[in-house]
């Protein structure tokens, strides 16, 4: 009896269990459908471009990214783009790191590859994104701002390499053709025309995010015209007519950045810092001998704001504890530390933990505009003043904003006949014989005076300083101790960057076409750029 009940129970249980199992298997199939797959495959932490298109606020943040990255952005990108190349070749610093071959004129491939990639891989797509989004959403002010960021970013690139991909950027193809530098510059002027015209109506865009002018269209127009002036002077020796037209156009716009209050910078914060703030921590750069010669010889008060006294004091016996290091030191010589014996950057540019200011990153300063106008006047362009006036106002603007010097001190400086001094206590003469006091009678030495003073005013913008040093040959620099580059002897500086390895693996046809075509057959560090015609 009991047995029967048990077996009935058992049979019943078996049936129930088999039902449960089979049903659960089918529920499984039903539940396991694919309806929510699209949701699963949507990353809640990222933004689709559709979402960006709908939001001016988000577009502003994307714009800020374009601003920061187009000026190299992160510290290591800055180091491999600027401080290892143009900062050394412009003569601002010498390196104390034995492994930094670029001070001996070797263009270390890995670094320049990353420099190329930092612009084309990071900044350029972002600029395009912002420009496209602004255009699609009818934001004319934002579109104009993006165009100015674009011109600023690309002129820095073409000034490094010469012919570069420009008009075909973003084609998403396996080959991207290069444009000649001449075409690129001509394009820049057109783009600036469009930008300035769109900005003429005033207004504002990306106000909460714009790190230069808080979205103020009127101020952006000032940058547009000031950039026009910079680019106009750059082509002075290659296309004098274009140079004159554009320079005069910029001047007649009446909205140049002439007051330091309008300086164009990218503001920084604790996260997105001025790269110098971090790389100075690494102890790899010191004031160059050229810099010491000029600042010390001129009795220039900016010496103390740009640099600090050497840790071990006055070593060359000239009574002044600021010491510059001659560029191109050999590896063996750098086996012994040169840091304590030479001047580091002023604490203002150094790490925040050491009292650094984490300053905004310079795009263009008023003082530069004055010096551009000085050269324009020297060239006979009609820019509303004489070369001397602009030369002196340039010094004055720079002195005031950097040192807070009063008018009398500035006048004393501009009238001084001091010339560059010896950097090593008298063994080697000063790097040049030009005085501070302007002498218009000799056009060439006047140009040297203008560019040398501009070089001082631009500090620490080595990118622009190297371009102008190549174009004009000024300021004169001490010869390097050594060069490891057969194309660039110690008494010269490189004329450009050679093309990077990644282009030869990913874009070989286009880069070879650029070399044999626009560049004239030679991809070397001493190949002259189109605008380098003096």
């Amino acid at each position, binding site marked *: 009896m009991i047995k029967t009940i048990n077996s009935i129970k058992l049979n019943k249980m078996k049936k129930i269990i088999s039902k449960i199992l*089979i049903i659960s298997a089918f529920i499984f199939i039903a539940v396991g459908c694919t309806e929510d797959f699209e949701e699963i495959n*949507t990353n809640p932490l990222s933004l689709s471009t559709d979402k960006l298109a709908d939001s001016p606020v988000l577009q502003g943040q994307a714009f800020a990214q374009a601003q920061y990255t187009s000026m190299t952005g992160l510290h290591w990108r800055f180091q491999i783009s600027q401080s290892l190349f143009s900062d050394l070749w412009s003569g601002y610093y010498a390196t104390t790191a034995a492994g930094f*071959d670029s001070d001996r004129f070797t263009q270390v491939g890995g670094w320049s590859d990353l420099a190329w990639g930092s612009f084309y891989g990071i900044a350029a797509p972002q600029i395009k994104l912002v420009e496209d989004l602004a255009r699609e959403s009818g934001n004319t002010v934002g579109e104009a701002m993006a165009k100015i960021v674009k011109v600023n970013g690309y002129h820095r690139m073409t000034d490094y390499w010469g012919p570069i991909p420009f008009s075909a950027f973003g084609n998403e193809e396996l080959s991207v053709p290069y444009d000649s530098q001449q075409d690129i510059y001509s394009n820049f002027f057109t783009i600036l025309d469009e930008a300035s015209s769109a900005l003429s109506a005033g207004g504002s865009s990306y106000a909460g995010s714009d790190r230069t002018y808080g979205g103020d269209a009127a101020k952006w127009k000032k940058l547009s015209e000031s950039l026009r002036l910079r680019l106009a002077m750059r082509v002075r020796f290659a296309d004098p007519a274009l140079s004159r037209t554009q320079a005069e156009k910029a001047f007649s716009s009446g909205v140049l950045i002439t007051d330091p209050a309008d300086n164009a910078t990218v503001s920084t914060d604790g996260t997105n810092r001025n790269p110098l703030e971090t790389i100075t921590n690494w102890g790899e750069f010191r004031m160059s001998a050229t810099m010491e010669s000029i600042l010390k010889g001129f009795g220039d008060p900016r010496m103390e704001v740009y640099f600090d006294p050497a840790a071990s004091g006055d070593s060359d016996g000239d009574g002044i504890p600021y010491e510059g290091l001659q560029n191109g030191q050999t590896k063996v010589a750098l086996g012994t530390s040169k840091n304590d014996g030479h001047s580091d950057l002023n604490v203002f540019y150094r790490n925040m933990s050491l009292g650094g200011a984490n300053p905004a990153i310079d795009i263009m300063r008023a003082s530069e505009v004055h010096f551009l106008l000085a050269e324009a006047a020297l060239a006979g362009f009609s820019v509303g003043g004489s070369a001397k006036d602009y030369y002196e106002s340039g010094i004055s603007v720079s002195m005031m904003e950097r040192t807070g010097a009063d008018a009398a001190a500035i006048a004393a400086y501009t009238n001084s006949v001091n010339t560059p001094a010896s950097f090593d206590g008298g063994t080697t003469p000063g790097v040049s014989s030009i005085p501070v006091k302007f002498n218009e009678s000799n056009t060439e030495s006047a140009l040297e005076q203008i560019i040398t003073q501009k070089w001082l005013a631009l500090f620490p913008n080595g990118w622009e300083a190297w371009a102008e040093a190549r174009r004009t040959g000024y300021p004169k620099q001490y010869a390097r101790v050594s060069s490891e580059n057969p194309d660039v002897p110690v008494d010269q500086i490189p004329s450009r960057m050679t093309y990077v390895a990644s282009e030869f693996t990913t874009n070989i046809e286009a880069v070879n076409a650029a070399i044999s075509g626009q560049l004239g057959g030679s991809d070397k560090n001493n190949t002259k750029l189109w605008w380098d015609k003096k």
Partner: protein
Amino acid sequence: MKQQTILSVFLSTFFLFGGVIFAQKTLNGNITDETGGSIPGATVIVVETNLGVISDFDGNYSISAEEGQSIQISYVGYSSQQILVGASSTYDVSLQSDNTLDEVIVTSLGIVRQKRELTYATQSVDTEGIDESRANGNLMNSLQGKVAGLSIQTTSGGVASGSKVVLRGNRSIAGSSQPLYIVDGVPLGGDINDLSPDDIESISVLRGSNAAALYGARANNGAIIITTKKGEEGSFKVNVNSTLTVDSPIIQFDYQNQYGQGSGGIYSSFSTDSWGPALGGTQPHWSLDPNITGNIPFVSNPDNITDFFDTGINIANNISVTSGSKNATAYLSYTNDIRKGIIPGNELQRHNINLKIDNTMLDGKLKISSRLNYIKSNINNEPSQWENFDNPYRHLYRLPRNIRTQDASNFEYIDSSGNSKQNYWKPNDNGGQNPYWTINRANLSETLTDRVLGHLSLTYNISDNLNILVRSAIDNSTNSFEKRWHNDTYIIADNGQYAIDNNRSLEWNTDFLLAFKRDLNENLSFNLNVGGNNRVNKSKGMSTNNGGLNAPNIFAVSNAVNLTANQFISEREVNSLYGFGNIGFKNGLFLDLTYRSDWSSTLPSDNNRYDFYSTGLSAVVSEFVNFPSFVNFFKVRGSYAVVGNDTDPYSLERLAQLQPGGFIALQTTAPATDLRAEKTTSFELGFDTTLFNNRVNLDFTYYKSNSIDQLFRQSVPQASGVTSKFINGGDIQNNGIEAVVSVGLLTNGDFTWDLILNYAANKSEVISLADGLETLSYGEDYVRNFQLNVGQPWGSMYSRGFERDAQNRVLMNANGTPTITAGKTVNIGNFNPDWMGGITNSFSYKNFNLRFLIDIRQGGSVVSFTKTILASDGLLAETAIGRSGGLIFGTDVYQKETPASTPASVDPETFWASIGGRNAPVGEAFVEDASNIRLRELSLSYALSQASLTNSPFNSVKLSLVGRNLFFFSNEASIDPEVTFGTGITADGYEAFSAPTLRNIGLNLKLGF
């Protein structure tokens, strides 16, 4: 202290229970085969005592035993027999031949199948000893050298280092070539090495995708199938397993000991190079400590590298309890691992609790199996790898030759302002550190992991022919990592630095399987299975970085100068349905068919399904054809499979990321808008045979696989607007052979000798990439560039090399250095070996057992980044050549090279700077042959006889002496070529500040109660 205690337990146990003897009677008998022929050399042992004899030439034996004991008679190729000793003294035995036809193997989905049915290559791994030597606590490393075609390379690191595991060669351009791990029928989401070797019942390796087609995409690279132990029917049993091993590093860099710090022959206390003057006398002290001034001896310190290391210690203890009735069994096991690395402060503690309960209900119709495995581990100060500033090896290997241990170990001092500072010869050097500072103040980290593996399965026999399995398993782990850097760790951050990482990840598989099986008639059997699987992967994480500390050396998030946080998320779901069937004819001919469809959330919704199928045939030819009598068994098999793959989550759309500080950055990779699923087609053919009375077993496989339509990122011109694009293309072909031979070499008296050989050779070729694409660069480091070139094998390494003329002579620069190619354009070799093999010898004599494994890797190239640095630092022995007067290329160094012009004499500092160093090392000058033969594993064990344990509380006692990586029989390179720095596809053939290989020796004690 602790290890001493354990050792004394070992020894006292050993002596307490040894050598007790009982009274016996003598048994006699004759052993014959089925035909009545006598069997000489058969083994007869008394089960209880483990003592045995061997039958003589006429098959006669004589052995002492007690009434009530059992004797077991065995002979290779025959089923063994067990006889209870009664009153009689004579026991004649007839043995039945055993064609090893019944060997079973665990295959896909945890299904146990007879090996004879299988249509593809599998190898079940001898798990004997994996719980003894424990392979530095890394489960996979204990498979090294044991499986044909399985390459296992230890990744550099400390006590928790992983390994790179590849079956049958690399094939995936963008993804991983590592196999899938299946535990109790279910894929494992996380790290296999967390599992305790004590809990492993069996491991079988499904080498090709043929075997694994049922697992879908992830089994593209083969699968490793692990079955965990379960409870045994019978009374309560306790097993204790204790291992204590010690590690010592095998350093192979050859240092010079003649010159110290400096440059150009001049001493500089500040220098990180050893291009200074000849050692001898004294020089000013380098120390920054104001209390330490004056001179120190400037002498050679040949041991300043090895002084740094501690003896590594590994202690593993396991206790397992099993008990069970007919309907319910339970297995509970606890494993505790304690490891101290050779880097001081590098430690691991792991607790692993594993409970498995199996129930049978309803007259055996319902089986419920559940397993819960909880693993908690705590890892301290695992060394960072590669060129990372926190990698202690990076700083250690570069110690200048005159630096004395007693000075360097003084890594810290208090400066005039009372701050603790780093004492290093080159203060504030970007990336430079005193290695003692690194381990005490910079590489301070803690990783905590809690992992739960849960497994529940129900099997119900609906009828005799039909059953259903429903199963669900999770693998969930949470991981927290934190790292602390003290103030004055150069350039890391102001006042110190603090970073935290918290992650959790889940893999959850749920599946069902309906199995129908029927013998249609005597000759024809048939089975059909239908199943489905739902897989969910989710991971989430958050990391914070303090961006420097406000108050020095207080490691708290609230002490951040500039706190940044990053968050990540990844989610994927894959649904699958599959069916497979098998038809067997006369238990000798088997046809397999499988089909599987996957739907993946990562693929475009209108095209998210991809299919796999395989077919295979196995014929036990010896069942149908009469072979010569020495062939006992012969089977041929062949199979063909197509396996697909999906892509990563969130790859279909170009996204933008929010960045700290109010930025939004556009992703640099173009989206994969038009994706086809990847596919691997593979074909294999093989045979298994058993020969000479089953003494020899040979398993041979030829395979060929083509991985096509691969999804990878191709670098495109950066000016195209994206840095890389998804490409669907490629055809990577691998083909090769694998052979496993096992031989019962000797059975003579108490002595047996078994030999297992395995051999595998794989050839890969890039058949095609994509339209118009002949070369794809898929990775780069300082030394090497990896390219896939159509028509060439996978694994070619390109580097800088010497410029040569038409006669292959090296062009020279005026200063006596060779000219170097501008780019990494010289093919310096392929990292893949030509072949790999292993030889396992097993000897047993009475209660002793000796086993050793020789591991062979022939061919392939390796290059050491460390050596390029040590060369330019003036540390390697060869850099001492020519210090006075210079050296001549081709004569003093690189004698194999012929210079194209008479080379000038060059000072060695200039010479080695031109070919070594970090920025542009010349790979061709440093590439070496990776061939090596090593004694991988050795174990000598002694098991106490049963007789001696009768009056003890023990059922079994076994003591083993174990060792791993004891020595190289030969090693062509000056480093261990099998140490890689990661598991990625570019990790092979490269040494970069890796941890040295560890020589590991110890004792293992196993006790059964």
